[in-house]
Protein backbone atom coordinates (compact mmCIF):
# COMPACT_ATOMS: atom_id res chain seq x y z
CA UNK A 1 0.00 0.00 0.00
CA UNK A 2 2.82 2.37 0.88
CA UNK A 3 4.60 1.60 -2.38
CA UNK A 4 1.37 2.23 -4.26
CA UNK A 5 0.97 5.68 -2.63
CA UNK A 6 4.58 6.54 -3.49
CA UNK A 7 4.00 5.47 -7.10
CA UNK A 8 0.85 7.58 -7.38
CA UNK A 9 2.60 10.59 -5.84
CA UNK A 10 5.50 10.20 -8.29
CA UNK A 11 3.04 9.98 -11.20
CA UNK A 12 1.27 13.17 -10.09
CA UNK A 13 4.59 15.01 -9.79
CA UNK A 14 5.56 13.82 -13.29
CA UNK A 15 2.26 15.00 -14.73
CA UNK A 16 2.61 18.38 -13.01
CA UNK A 17 6.15 18.75 -14.34
CA UNK A 18 5.04 17.89 -17.88
CA UNK A 19 2.21 20.41 -17.67
CA UNK A 20 4.57 23.13 -16.46
CA UNK A 21 7.07 22.26 -19.19
CA UNK A 22 4.30 22.43 -21.81
CA UNK A 23 3.10 25.81 -20.54
CA UNK A 24 6.56 27.43 -20.27
CA UNK A 25 7.50 27.94 -23.95
CA UNK A 26 4.17 29.64 -24.81
CA UNK A 27 4.59 31.99 -21.86
CA UNK A 28 8.06 32.81 -23.12
CA UNK A 29 6.73 33.34 -26.65
CA UNK A 30 4.11 35.86 -25.53
CA UNK A 31 6.77 37.87 -23.70
CA UNK A 32 9.15 37.68 -26.63
CA UNK A 33 6.53 38.51 -29.28
CA UNK A 34 5.98 42.03 -28.00
CA UNK A 35 9.40 43.10 -29.20
CA UNK A 36 10.05 41.45 -32.57
CA UNK A 37 13.70 41.06 -33.38
CA UNK A 38 13.43 41.57 -37.17
CA UNK A 39 10.55 43.37 -38.90
CA UNK A 40 9.09 41.28 -41.80
CA UNK A 41 9.41 42.77 -45.26
CA UNK A 42 6.05 44.30 -46.16
CA UNK A 43 4.71 45.06 -49.65
CA UNK A 44 4.46 48.81 -50.47
CA UNK A 45 1.98 50.15 -47.96
CA UNK A 46 -0.76 52.51 -49.06
CA UNK A 47 -2.17 54.87 -46.45
CA UNK A 48 -3.97 52.36 -44.24
CA UNK A 49 -5.06 52.30 -40.66
CA UNK A 50 -2.90 50.77 -37.99
CA UNK A 51 -3.25 47.10 -37.24
CA UNK A 52 -5.24 46.52 -34.02
CA UNK A 53 -2.98 46.15 -30.99
CA UNK A 54 -3.82 42.57 -30.01
CA UNK A 55 -3.26 41.29 -33.56
CA UNK A 56 0.02 43.19 -33.85
CA UNK A 57 1.26 41.79 -30.53
CA UNK A 58 0.27 38.26 -31.44
CA UNK A 59 2.07 38.51 -34.74
CA UNK A 60 -0.63 36.72 -36.68
CA UNK A 61 -4.30 36.86 -37.54
CA UNK A 62 -6.74 34.31 -36.12
CA UNK A 63 -9.59 34.06 -38.62
CA UNK A 64 -12.72 31.90 -38.61
CA UNK A 65 -13.42 30.33 -42.00
CA UNK A 66 -15.68 27.62 -43.34
CA UNK A 67 -14.16 24.21 -43.90
CA UNK A 68 -17.08 22.50 -45.60
CA UNK A 69 -18.25 25.14 -48.12
CA UNK A 70 -16.57 24.94 -51.51
CA UNK A 71 -15.37 27.11 -53.18
CA UNK A 72 -15.17 29.63 -50.33
CA UNK A 73 -13.79 27.65 -47.42
CA UNK A 74 -12.93 23.99 -47.73
CA UNK A 75 -10.13 21.50 -47.19
CA UNK A 76 -8.39 20.50 -50.40
CA UNK A 77 -7.16 17.04 -51.33
CA UNK A 78 -3.83 17.74 -49.63
CA UNK A 79 -5.52 18.57 -46.34
CA UNK A 80 -4.94 22.33 -46.54
CA UNK A 81 -7.51 25.10 -46.26
CA UNK A 82 -8.40 26.66 -49.58
CA UNK A 83 -11.12 28.83 -51.02
CA UNK A 84 -12.07 32.41 -51.78
CA UNK A 85 -12.61 33.36 -48.12
CA UNK A 86 -9.42 31.60 -47.08
CA UNK A 87 -7.41 33.42 -49.75
CA UNK A 88 -8.85 36.75 -48.60
CA UNK A 89 -7.75 35.92 -45.05
CA UNK A 90 -4.28 34.96 -46.31
CA UNK A 91 -4.03 38.27 -48.16
CA UNK A 92 -4.94 40.09 -44.94
CA UNK A 93 -2.09 38.27 -43.22
CA UNK A 94 0.26 39.24 -46.01
CA UNK A 95 -0.81 42.89 -45.92
CA UNK A 96 -0.43 42.99 -42.15
CA UNK A 97 2.75 40.99 -41.58
CA UNK A 98 4.28 40.42 -45.00
CA UNK A 99 3.60 36.69 -45.08
CA UNK A 100 0.59 34.55 -45.80
CA UNK A 101 1.67 32.13 -43.09
CA UNK A 102 1.10 34.61 -40.24
CA UNK A 103 -2.41 33.28 -40.02
CA UNK A 104 -4.30 30.76 -37.90
CA UNK A 105 -7.47 29.46 -39.50
CA UNK A 106 -10.28 28.20 -37.26
CA UNK A 107 -13.05 26.10 -38.80
CA UNK A 108 -16.54 27.43 -38.14
CA UNK A 109 -20.01 26.44 -39.33
CA UNK A 110 -23.00 28.65 -40.06
CA UNK A 111 -24.49 28.30 -36.58
CA UNK A 112 -21.16 28.49 -34.76
CA UNK A 113 -19.45 31.38 -36.53
CA UNK A 114 -21.01 34.29 -34.65
CA UNK A 115 -20.68 32.71 -31.18
CA UNK A 116 -17.05 31.89 -32.06
CA UNK A 117 -16.47 35.56 -32.93
CA UNK A 118 -18.25 36.86 -29.85
CA UNK A 119 -16.29 34.60 -27.54
CA UNK A 120 -13.03 36.13 -28.91
CA UNK A 121 -11.82 32.76 -30.11
CA UNK A 122 -11.07 34.52 -33.44
CA UNK A 123 -10.28 38.12 -34.45
CA UNK A 124 -12.63 38.22 -37.43
CA UNK A 125 -14.74 35.79 -39.43
CA UNK A 126 -14.48 35.49 -43.20
CA UNK A 127 -17.07 32.76 -43.52
CA UNK A 128 -19.70 33.32 -46.20
CA UNK A 129 -21.42 35.78 -43.86
CA UNK A 130 -24.36 37.40 -45.64
CA UNK A 131 -25.55 40.76 -44.38
CA UNK A 132 -28.82 40.56 -42.51
CA UNK A 133 -30.46 43.13 -40.26
CA UNK A 134 -30.73 40.60 -37.43
CA UNK A 135 -27.00 39.90 -37.52
CA UNK A 136 -26.11 43.61 -37.48
CA UNK A 137 -27.69 43.74 -34.05
CA UNK A 138 -25.03 41.41 -32.65
CA UNK A 139 -21.95 41.99 -34.80
CA UNK A 140 -20.46 44.62 -37.12
CA UNK A 141 -19.81 44.09 -40.84
CA UNK A 142 -16.90 45.23 -42.96
CA UNK A 143 -17.61 46.63 -46.41
CA UNK A 144 -18.72 43.89 -48.85
CA UNK A 145 -16.19 41.45 -50.26
CA UNK A 146 -18.53 39.20 -52.26
CA UNK A 147 -22.13 39.13 -53.41
CA UNK A 148 -24.10 35.93 -53.61
CA UNK A 149 -27.57 35.10 -54.81
CA UNK A 150 -29.93 32.47 -53.53
CA UNK A 151 -30.80 29.59 -55.81
CA UNK A 152 -32.80 26.37 -55.60
CA UNK A 153 -31.19 22.96 -56.11
CA UNK A 154 -33.64 20.27 -57.22
CA UNK A 155 -33.44 16.74 -58.64
CA UNK A 156 -33.61 16.63 -62.43
CA UNK A 157 -37.17 15.29 -62.50
CA UNK A 158 -38.51 17.83 -60.04
CA UNK A 159 -41.76 19.71 -60.68
CA UNK A 160 -40.38 22.83 -59.00
CA UNK A 161 -39.63 25.58 -61.53
CA UNK A 162 -39.45 28.74 -59.44
CA UNK A 163 -39.61 29.97 -55.90
CA UNK A 164 -43.38 30.32 -56.37
CA UNK A 165 -43.85 26.55 -56.74
CA UNK A 166 -42.80 25.80 -53.18
CA UNK A 167 -46.24 25.45 -51.61
CA UNK A 168 -46.46 22.22 -49.66
CA UNK A 169 -42.85 21.29 -50.44
CA UNK A 170 -40.00 20.61 -48.04
CA UNK A 171 -37.17 23.14 -48.24
CA UNK A 172 -33.84 22.21 -46.71
CA UNK A 173 -31.12 24.66 -45.75
CA UNK A 174 -28.42 24.99 -43.13
CA UNK A 175 -29.26 26.05 -39.60
CA UNK A 176 -29.06 29.79 -39.06
CA UNK A 177 -28.78 30.62 -42.77
CA UNK A 178 -30.74 33.63 -43.97
CA UNK A 179 -32.75 31.28 -46.18
CA UNK A 180 -34.10 29.59 -43.05
CA UNK A 181 -35.38 32.88 -41.69
CA UNK A 182 -36.76 33.91 -45.12
CA UNK A 183 -38.56 30.57 -45.50
CA UNK A 184 -40.04 30.89 -42.03
CA UNK A 185 -41.26 34.42 -42.82
CA UNK A 186 -42.40 34.07 -46.41
CA UNK A 187 -43.11 30.42 -47.10
CA UNK A 188 -45.50 29.50 -44.37
CA UNK A 189 -47.10 26.77 -46.48
CA UNK A 190 -43.78 24.98 -47.00
CA UNK A 191 -42.01 22.73 -44.57
CA UNK A 192 -38.54 23.85 -43.45
CA UNK A 193 -35.82 21.34 -42.65
CA UNK A 194 -32.63 22.69 -41.08
CA UNK A 195 -29.46 20.61 -41.02
CA UNK A 196 -25.97 21.33 -39.80
CA UNK A 197 -23.95 21.11 -43.00
CA UNK A 198 -24.44 21.82 -46.72
CA UNK A 199 -23.38 18.24 -47.53
CA UNK A 200 -26.21 16.80 -45.41
CA UNK A 201 -28.63 19.13 -47.15
CA UNK A 202 -27.54 17.84 -50.56
CA UNK A 203 -28.01 14.26 -49.28
CA UNK A 204 -31.50 15.20 -48.13
CA UNK A 205 -32.42 16.35 -51.65
CA UNK A 206 -30.86 13.29 -53.24
CA UNK A 207 -32.65 10.79 -51.03
CA UNK A 208 -35.98 12.56 -51.24
CA UNK A 209 -36.25 13.78 -47.65
CA UNK A 210 -36.40 17.33 -49.01
CA UNK A 211 -37.74 18.63 -52.31
CA UNK A 212 -35.23 21.43 -52.73
CA UNK A 213 -32.08 22.91 -51.20
CA UNK A 214 -32.19 26.69 -50.97
CA UNK A 215 -28.66 28.05 -50.73
CA UNK A 216 -25.95 30.29 -52.20
CA UNK A 217 -25.32 30.17 -55.93
CA UNK A 218 -21.60 29.46 -55.86
CA UNK A 219 -21.92 26.37 -53.67
CA UNK A 220 -24.95 25.02 -55.51
CA UNK A 221 -23.37 25.52 -58.92
CA UNK A 222 -20.40 23.47 -57.77
CA UNK A 223 -22.73 20.70 -56.60
CA UNK A 224 -24.80 20.70 -59.81
CA UNK A 225 -21.66 20.64 -61.95
CA UNK A 226 -20.35 17.57 -60.19
CA UNK A 227 -23.64 15.70 -59.72
CA UNK A 228 -25.52 15.29 -62.95
CA UNK A 229 -28.73 14.12 -61.25
CA UNK A 230 -29.27 17.56 -59.71
CA UNK A 231 -29.90 20.92 -61.32
CA UNK A 232 -30.62 24.52 -60.39
CA UNK A 233 -33.86 26.30 -61.21
CA UNK A 234 -33.45 29.54 -63.12
CA UNK A 235 -34.72 32.05 -60.63
CA UNK A 236 -32.47 34.05 -58.34
CA UNK A 237 -33.44 35.76 -55.12
CA UNK A 238 -32.02 37.40 -52.01
CA UNK A 239 -28.96 38.86 -53.73
CA UNK A 240 -27.18 40.29 -50.70
CA UNK A 241 -23.47 41.00 -50.26
CA UNK A 242 -21.24 39.21 -47.78
CA UNK A 243 -19.01 40.98 -45.28
CA UNK A 244 -16.26 40.14 -42.83
CA UNK A 245 -17.70 39.69 -39.34
CA UNK A 246 -16.19 41.94 -36.67
CA UNK A 247 -17.10 42.33 -33.01
CA UNK A 248 -19.14 45.40 -32.22
CA UNK A 249 -17.17 48.30 -30.78
CA UNK A 250 -13.85 47.30 -32.37
CA UNK A 251 -13.35 50.38 -34.50
CA UNK A 252 -9.65 49.80 -35.11
CA UNK A 253 -10.28 46.27 -36.40
CA UNK A 254 -13.08 47.45 -38.69
CA UNK A 255 -10.99 50.35 -40.02
CA UNK A 256 -8.07 48.07 -40.87
CA UNK A 257 -10.23 45.41 -42.54
CA UNK A 258 -12.14 48.01 -44.59
CA UNK A 259 -8.88 49.60 -45.65
CA UNK A 260 -7.52 46.23 -46.73
CA UNK A 261 -10.67 45.42 -48.71
CA UNK A 262 -10.55 48.82 -50.44
CA UNK A 263 -6.90 48.26 -51.31
CA UNK A 264 -7.64 44.79 -52.72
CA UNK A 265 -10.60 46.08 -54.71
CA UNK A 266 -8.57 48.93 -56.20
CA UNK A 267 -5.91 46.45 -57.34
CA UNK A 268 -8.52 43.99 -58.71
CA UNK A 269 -7.21 41.34 -56.34
CA UNK A 270 -10.60 39.78 -55.68
CA UNK A 271 -10.96 38.79 -59.33
CA UNK A 272 -7.48 37.27 -59.21
CA UNK A 273 -8.38 35.26 -56.11
CA UNK A 274 -11.61 34.07 -57.70
CA UNK A 275 -9.83 32.93 -60.85
CA UNK A 276 -7.16 31.17 -58.81
CA UNK A 277 -9.69 29.26 -56.73
CA UNK A 278 -11.68 28.40 -59.85
CA UNK A 279 -8.59 27.04 -61.53
CA UNK A 280 -7.60 24.96 -58.50
CA UNK A 281 -11.08 23.48 -58.15
CA UNK A 282 -11.19 22.55 -61.84
CA UNK A 283 -14.11 24.80 -62.75
CA UNK A 284 -14.44 25.60 -66.49
CA UNK A 285 -13.30 29.14 -67.33
CA UNK A 286 -16.74 30.04 -68.68
CA UNK A 287 -18.18 29.35 -65.24
CA UNK A 288 -15.46 31.37 -63.53
CA UNK A 289 -16.02 34.32 -65.87
CA UNK A 290 -19.75 34.24 -65.23
CA UNK A 291 -18.98 34.84 -61.56
CA UNK A 292 -16.71 37.87 -62.07
CA UNK A 293 -19.71 40.14 -61.47
CA UNK A 294 -20.02 38.85 -57.92
CA UNK A 295 -16.66 40.13 -56.64
CA UNK A 296 -15.70 43.74 -55.89
CA UNK A 297 -13.70 45.25 -58.76
CA UNK A 298 -12.40 48.74 -59.49
CA UNK A 299 -15.58 49.49 -61.42
CA UNK A 300 -17.92 47.25 -59.41
CA UNK A 301 -18.77 47.83 -55.79
CA UNK A 302 -21.59 46.53 -53.63
CA UNK A 303 -23.64 48.08 -50.89
CA UNK A 304 -25.69 46.44 -48.20
CA UNK A 305 -29.48 46.93 -48.28
CA UNK A 306 -29.37 49.29 -45.29
CA UNK A 307 -32.71 50.21 -43.83
CA UNK A 308 -34.32 47.19 -45.47
CA UNK A 309 -34.71 43.69 -44.15
CA UNK A 310 -34.73 41.37 -47.17
CA UNK A 311 -35.27 38.39 -44.93
CA UNK A 312 -38.75 39.61 -43.97
CA UNK A 313 -39.49 41.02 -47.41
CA UNK A 314 -41.92 38.58 -48.97
CA UNK A 315 -42.57 40.56 -52.12
CA UNK A 316 -39.48 39.21 -53.81
CA UNK A 317 -40.97 35.70 -53.99
Amino acid at each position, binding site marked *: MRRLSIAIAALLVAVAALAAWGAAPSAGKVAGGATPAAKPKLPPKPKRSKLPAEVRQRGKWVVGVKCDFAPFGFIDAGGKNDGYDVEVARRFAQLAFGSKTKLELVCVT*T*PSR*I*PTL*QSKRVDIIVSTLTWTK*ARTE*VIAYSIPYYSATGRLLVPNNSSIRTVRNLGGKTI*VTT*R*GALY*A*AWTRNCFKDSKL*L*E*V*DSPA*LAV*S*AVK*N*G*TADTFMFDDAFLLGVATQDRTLKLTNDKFLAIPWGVGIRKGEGAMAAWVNGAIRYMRAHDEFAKILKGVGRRTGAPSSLINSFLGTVPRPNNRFTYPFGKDPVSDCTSR
Partner: protein
Amino acid sequence: MSLLASIDWHFIREHLPDFWQGLKNTLKVAGIGIAGSLAIGILLGAARAHRIPVISQLAAAYVEVIRNTPILVQIFFIAYGLPELPWHPIHLTQFTQAWLSVMIWGGAFNTENFRAGFEAVPARFREAARALGFGQVATFVNVTLPIGGRIALPSSINTYISVLKNTSLLTAIGYVELTSTGYNLESETFKATEIFIVLGIAYLAVVWTLSALIRLVEARLALPERGR
Protein backbone atom coordinates in the same frame (compact mmCIF):
# COMPACT_ATOMS: atom_id res chain seq x y z
CA MET B 1 -28.35 38.20 -8.98
CA SER B 2 -27.15 40.16 -11.99
CA LEU B 3 -27.38 37.00 -14.08
CA LEU B 4 -31.11 36.81 -13.35
CA ALA B 5 -31.47 40.48 -14.20
CA SER B 6 -29.65 40.13 -17.52
CA ILE B 7 -31.85 37.31 -18.79
CA ASP B 8 -34.27 38.40 -21.47
CA TRP B 9 -37.53 37.06 -20.00
CA HIS B 10 -39.57 38.72 -22.73
CA PHE B 11 -37.71 36.65 -25.31
CA ILE B 12 -38.52 33.46 -23.43
CA ARG B 13 -42.22 34.37 -23.14
CA GLU B 14 -42.35 35.30 -26.82
CA HIS B 15 -40.99 31.94 -27.94
CA LEU B 16 -42.79 29.68 -25.46
CA PRO B 17 -45.15 28.38 -28.19
CA ASP B 18 -42.13 27.23 -30.23
CA PHE B 19 -40.63 25.45 -27.23
CA TRP B 20 -43.98 23.89 -26.40
CA GLN B 21 -44.31 22.56 -29.94
CA GLY B 22 -40.79 21.15 -29.71
CA LEU B 23 -41.56 19.54 -26.36
CA LYS B 24 -44.70 17.94 -27.81
CA ASN B 25 -42.60 16.45 -30.61
CA THR B 26 -40.05 15.18 -28.09
CA LEU B 27 -42.77 13.52 -26.04
CA LYS B 28 -44.38 11.98 -29.13
CA VAL B 29 -41.13 10.38 -30.26
CA ALA B 30 -40.08 9.40 -26.75
CA GLY B 31 -43.51 7.91 -26.03
CA ILE B 32 -43.42 5.67 -29.06
CA GLY B 33 -39.78 4.86 -28.38
CA ILE B 34 -40.40 3.86 -24.76
CA ALA B 35 -43.47 1.79 -25.56
CA GLY B 36 -41.66 0.09 -28.43
CA SER B 37 -38.55 -0.64 -26.40
CA LEU B 38 -40.72 -2.12 -23.64
CA ALA B 39 -42.31 -4.49 -26.13
CA ILE B 40 -39.00 -5.39 -27.79
CA GLY B 41 -37.37 -5.84 -24.39
CA ILE B 42 -39.99 -8.28 -23.15
CA LEU B 43 -40.19 -10.31 -26.36
CA LEU B 44 -36.49 -10.57 -27.13
CA GLY B 45 -35.54 -10.79 -23.45
CA ALA B 46 -37.85 -13.78 -23.13
CA ALA B 47 -36.39 -15.36 -26.25
CA ARG B 48 -32.88 -14.92 -24.91
CA ALA B 49 -33.75 -16.14 -21.40
CA HIS B 50 -35.46 -19.25 -22.75
CA ARG B 51 -32.70 -19.84 -25.29
CA ILE B 52 -35.16 -20.15 -28.16
CA PRO B 53 -33.04 -21.20 -31.16
CA VAL B 54 -32.44 -18.77 -34.06
CA ILE B 55 -34.31 -15.88 -32.40
CA SER B 56 -31.98 -15.98 -29.44
CA GLN B 57 -28.87 -15.73 -31.62
CA LEU B 58 -30.36 -13.01 -33.82
CA ALA B 59 -31.37 -11.06 -30.74
CA ALA B 60 -27.85 -11.40 -29.34
CA ALA B 61 -26.40 -10.02 -32.57
CA TYR B 62 -28.89 -7.12 -32.54
CA VAL B 63 -28.05 -6.25 -28.94
CA GLU B 64 -24.30 -6.36 -29.56
CA VAL B 65 -24.47 -4.15 -32.66
CA ILE B 66 -26.68 -1.54 -31.04
CA ARG B 67 -24.87 -1.46 -27.71
CA ASN B 68 -21.44 -1.15 -29.28
CA THR B 69 -22.16 1.65 -31.72
CA PRO B 70 -22.91 5.30 -30.89
CA ILE B 71 -26.57 6.20 -31.17
CA LEU B 72 -25.72 9.17 -33.36
CA VAL B 73 -24.21 6.80 -35.92
CA GLN B 74 -27.37 4.69 -35.76
CA ILE B 75 -29.54 7.77 -36.33
CA PHE B 76 -27.45 8.82 -39.33
CA PHE B 77 -27.58 5.34 -40.76
CA ILE B 78 -31.37 5.17 -40.56
CA ALA B 79 -31.80 8.68 -41.96
CA TYR B 80 -29.07 8.88 -44.59
CA GLY B 81 -27.84 5.33 -45.05
CA LEU B 82 -31.09 3.46 -45.64
CA PRO B 83 -32.22 5.57 -48.62
CA GLU B 84 -28.91 4.84 -50.32
CA LEU B 85 -28.84 1.08 -49.92
CA PRO B 86 -27.86 -0.18 -53.37
CA TRP B 87 -30.27 -3.06 -53.76
CA HIS B 88 -33.32 -1.78 -51.89
CA PRO B 89 -33.33 1.87 -50.79
CA ILE B 90 -35.69 2.47 -47.88
CA HIS B 91 -37.31 5.91 -47.63
CA LEU B 92 -38.95 6.78 -44.33
CA THR B 93 -40.64 9.95 -43.21
CA GLN B 94 -38.64 12.04 -40.78
CA PHE B 95 -40.98 11.20 -37.91
CA THR B 96 -40.59 7.48 -38.60
CA GLN B 97 -36.81 7.82 -38.73
CA ALA B 98 -36.98 9.56 -35.36
CA TRP B 99 -39.03 7.07 -33.37
CA LEU B 100 -37.47 4.09 -35.11
CA SER B 101 -33.94 5.10 -34.13
CA VAL B 102 -34.72 5.63 -30.45
CA MET B 103 -36.90 2.55 -30.29
CA ILE B 104 -34.22 0.30 -31.79
CA TRP B 105 -31.65 1.74 -29.38
CA GLY B 106 -33.90 1.39 -26.32
CA GLY B 107 -35.04 -2.07 -27.35
CA ALA B 108 -31.47 -3.43 -27.35
CA PHE B 109 -30.72 -2.20 -23.85
CA ASN B 110 -34.11 -3.30 -22.58
CA THR B 111 -33.59 -6.79 -24.01
CA GLU B 112 -30.65 -7.22 -21.69
CA ASN B 113 -32.59 -5.74 -18.77
CA PHE B 114 -35.47 -8.16 -19.19
CA ARG B 115 -33.24 -11.13 -19.94
CA ALA B 116 -31.51 -10.57 -16.63
CA GLY B 117 -34.88 -10.13 -14.92
CA PHE B 118 -36.34 -13.33 -16.35
CA GLU B 119 -33.22 -15.34 -15.58
CA ALA B 120 -33.35 -14.10 -11.99
CA VAL B 121 -36.70 -15.74 -11.41
CA PRO B 122 -35.81 -18.72 -9.22
CA ALA B 123 -35.93 -21.98 -11.15
CA ARG B 124 -38.14 -23.56 -8.51
CA PHE B 125 -41.00 -21.18 -9.33
CA ARG B 126 -40.91 -22.19 -12.98
CA GLU B 127 -40.57 -25.87 -12.15
CA ALA B 128 -43.54 -25.59 -9.79
CA ALA B 129 -45.60 -24.03 -12.56
CA ARG B 130 -44.61 -26.80 -14.99
CA ALA B 131 -45.44 -29.39 -12.34
CA LEU B 132 -48.88 -27.84 -11.98
CA GLY B 133 -49.50 -28.40 -15.68
CA PHE B 134 -48.81 -24.93 -17.08
CA GLY B 135 -47.44 -24.97 -20.63
CA GLN B 136 -44.33 -23.06 -21.67
CA VAL B 137 -46.16 -19.89 -22.67
CA ALA B 138 -48.55 -20.02 -19.71
CA THR B 139 -45.59 -20.40 -17.33
CA PHE B 140 -43.98 -17.40 -18.89
CA VAL B 141 -47.06 -15.23 -18.78
CA ASN B 142 -48.22 -16.20 -15.29
CA VAL B 143 -44.93 -16.72 -13.44
CA THR B 144 -41.77 -15.51 -15.21
CA LEU B 145 -43.12 -12.27 -16.63
CA PRO B 146 -44.78 -10.88 -13.48
CA ILE B 147 -41.81 -11.68 -11.26
CA GLY B 148 -38.99 -11.14 -13.76
CA GLY B 149 -40.60 -7.95 -15.03
CA ARG B 150 -40.65 -6.48 -11.54
CA ILE B 151 -37.02 -7.44 -11.03
CA ALA B 152 -36.11 -5.76 -14.32
CA LEU B 153 -38.11 -2.59 -13.60
CA PRO B 154 -35.41 -0.47 -11.93
CA SER B 155 -32.88 -1.02 -14.72
CA SER B 156 -35.44 -0.41 -17.43
CA ILE B 157 -36.22 2.95 -15.80
CA ASN B 158 -32.66 3.95 -16.73
CA THR B 159 -33.26 2.85 -20.30
CA TYR B 160 -36.49 4.81 -20.65
CA ILE B 161 -34.90 7.96 -19.25
CA SER B 162 -32.02 7.53 -21.67
CA VAL B 163 -34.45 7.08 -24.56
CA LEU B 164 -36.07 10.37 -23.63
CA LYS B 165 -32.76 12.20 -23.39
CA ASN B 166 -31.46 10.64 -26.58
CA THR B 167 -34.29 12.25 -28.54
CA SER B 168 -32.19 15.41 -28.30
CA LEU B 169 -29.73 13.82 -30.75
CA LEU B 170 -32.42 13.89 -33.43
CA THR B 171 -31.21 17.45 -34.00
CA ALA B 172 -28.76 15.79 -36.34
CA ILE B 173 -31.47 14.89 -38.84
CA GLY B 174 -33.30 18.16 -38.38
CA TYR B 175 -36.32 16.69 -36.61
CA VAL B 176 -37.84 19.64 -34.77
CA GLU B 177 -37.94 18.36 -31.21
CA LEU B 178 -37.09 20.46 -28.17
CA THR B 179 -33.30 20.64 -28.52
CA SER B 180 -33.55 21.25 -32.26
CA THR B 181 -35.99 24.10 -31.66
CA GLY B 182 -33.59 25.64 -29.18
CA TYR B 183 -30.61 25.21 -31.46
CA ASN B 184 -32.42 26.70 -34.49
CA LEU B 185 -33.54 29.66 -32.41
CA GLU B 186 -30.03 30.18 -31.09
CA SER B 187 -28.62 30.21 -34.63
CA GLU B 188 -30.85 33.14 -35.50
CA THR B 189 -31.09 35.15 -32.31
CA PHE B 190 -27.86 34.21 -30.46
CA LYS B 191 -29.61 34.24 -27.09
CA ALA B 192 -27.90 31.09 -25.89
CA THR B 193 -28.33 31.66 -22.12
CA GLU B 194 -32.09 32.13 -22.28
CA ILE B 195 -32.61 29.23 -24.66
CA PHE B 196 -30.53 26.72 -22.76
CA ILE B 197 -32.12 27.71 -19.44
CA VAL B 198 -35.50 26.88 -20.92
CA LEU B 199 -34.22 23.60 -22.38
CA GLY B 200 -32.58 22.64 -19.10
CA ILE B 201 -35.71 23.27 -17.08
CA ALA B 202 -37.93 21.52 -19.60
CA TYR B 203 -35.83 18.36 -19.77
CA LEU B 204 -35.36 18.30 -16.00
CA ALA B 205 -39.10 18.57 -15.46
CA VAL B 206 -39.99 15.92 -18.03
CA VAL B 207 -37.35 13.38 -17.02
CA TRP B 208 -38.05 13.84 -13.31
CA THR B 209 -41.77 13.36 -13.92
CA LEU B 210 -41.13 10.24 -15.96
CA SER B 211 -38.91 8.66 -13.34
CA ALA B 212 -41.31 9.63 -10.54
CA LEU B 213 -44.15 7.96 -12.46
CA ILE B 214 -42.17 4.80 -12.99
CA ARG B 215 -41.09 4.71 -9.36
CA LEU B 216 -44.74 5.01 -8.39
CA VAL B 217 -45.53 2.01 -10.58
CA GLU B 218 -42.59 0.16 -9.10
CA ALA B 219 -43.76 0.85 -5.55
CA ARG B 220 -47.23 -0.45 -6.30
CA LEU B 221 -45.87 -3.57 -7.98
CA ALA B 222 -43.24 -4.28 -5.35
CA LEU B 223 -42.57 -7.92 -4.70
CA PRO B 224 -43.18 -9.04 -1.14
CA GLU B 225 -40.07 -9.83 0.85
CA ARG B 226 -38.57 -13.02 -0.56
CA GLY B 227 -37.44 -14.40 2.74
CA ARG B 228 -39.09 -17.77 2.34
